[in-house]
């Protein structure tokens, strides 16, 4: 099926509170967070979609709008694919686990948990997978500050005409991802 047909079929199966979009040849189906597992099961069980192969699961930090969690499914028999996406709020970032559907989702959920701080209810052990022990913070969240950028000047020129000596008239710019001093870290709590 074409991406448009896959998206339309899943919307028809799942009902009214589900929307879809097609971009760059990929069907993306947005489902509400409580229907997360149900939507994935429907994509597997529906004979016209039959997306039985779990490819990956990850998340996107959408700042004030919370997190998007995505799972990519592929149909081995029908040779089409679909992204199922949901949105969860930032302060209560919890989703039901998909390990009951795909046991291989366990690693992906562990990685998403350590990188974004998203909880997966029902997962048997959300221990860190990739990060070293004792790592503090969730490095793929946008508020995570890279310490090297704070400690070390950005290599090369950030702006045209900028050089190492630095003209005094120019405002000194912060490297990307580093907030203003006093708004983060130990200074913010003072």
């Amino acid at each position, binding site marked *: 099926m074409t991406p448009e047909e896959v998206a339309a079929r899943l919307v028809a199966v799942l009902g009214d509170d589900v929307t879809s979009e097609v971009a760059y040849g990929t069907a993306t189906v947005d489902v509400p967070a409580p229907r997360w597992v149900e939507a994935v*099961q429907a994509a*597997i*069980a529906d004979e016209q979609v039959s997306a*039985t*192969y*779990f490819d990956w699961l990850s998340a996107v930090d959408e700042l004030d709008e919370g997190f998007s969690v995505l799972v990519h499914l592929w149909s081995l028999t029908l040779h089409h694919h679909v992204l199922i996406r949901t949105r969860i709020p930032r302060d209560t970032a919890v989703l039901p686990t998909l*390990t*009951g*559907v*795909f*046991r*291989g989702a*366990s*690693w992906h959920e562990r990685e998403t948990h350590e990188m974004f701080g998203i909880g997966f209810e029902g997962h*048997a*052990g959300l*221990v860190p997978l*990739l*990060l*070293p*022990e004792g*790592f503090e913070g969730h*490095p793929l969240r946008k508020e*995570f500050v*890279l310490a*090297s*950028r704070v400690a*070390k000047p950005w*290599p090369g020129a950030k702006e045209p005409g900028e050089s190492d000596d630095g003209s005094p008239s120019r405002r000194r710019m912060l*490297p990307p991802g580093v907030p203003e001093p006093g708004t983060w870290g130990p200074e913010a709590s003072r």
Partner: protein
Amino acid sequence: MGVTSGSEPLLFAPATLPVISGGTVPPSGLEAPAPMRFVLNWGRRYSLWVFNFGLACCAIEFIASSMSQHDFIRLGVIPFAHGPRQADLMVVSGTVTDKMAPAVRRLYEQMPEPKYVISFGACSNCGGPYWDSYSVTKGVDQIIPVDVYVPGCPPRPEALLHGILKLQDKIAGERLPLRASEKSVRPSAAVFQRPFVSPPPQVPQHGAVRHRVHGLDQPIRLEVPAVEPPTESA
């Protein structure tokens, strides 16, 4: 470099000999006589069993320099040692992450003295393009002593050959007691060690679609059929 007294080389250097450019002889009987030292260093520099710590794309260049085109065995670098315990030279080629760092350190500790390290490529020199990463160690020299740094991203195989020649020059002028005293101030591997990873807890059995996938996070059990004992009647 030579130990000289007047113009004649000394066959047996006294333990208290206060010479050689830029250093003093440590007060020990370990110092070999100069000709013997030359022979030992000559042997060491041309039989470097190399242990490849290939961690990223630089390892491809390293492997290329071990192959017939560049063929570093003609310089006396022998590919490959069977493990760190048989190796003289470790080439760290690639991105060292904080997660990998204890393993690098542990394998370095397993190598017998005298041991040498070449840091190959920008990542293992200083972090390279990952200088601001949350997970990359900013240079392998933060965890183990490095003898030669080869710059490049990735370096050409010729750069590694140049680095090997530099290392051999260094070995040629080496005096083991000095080398040992340099090393002794470093912390032991226990600082970096952590306990072994325990297996994950059992995930409970799941529903109807469970048979569709095979979770790789669980150990795969091999079902071995029971072998019936041979019967006499056959």
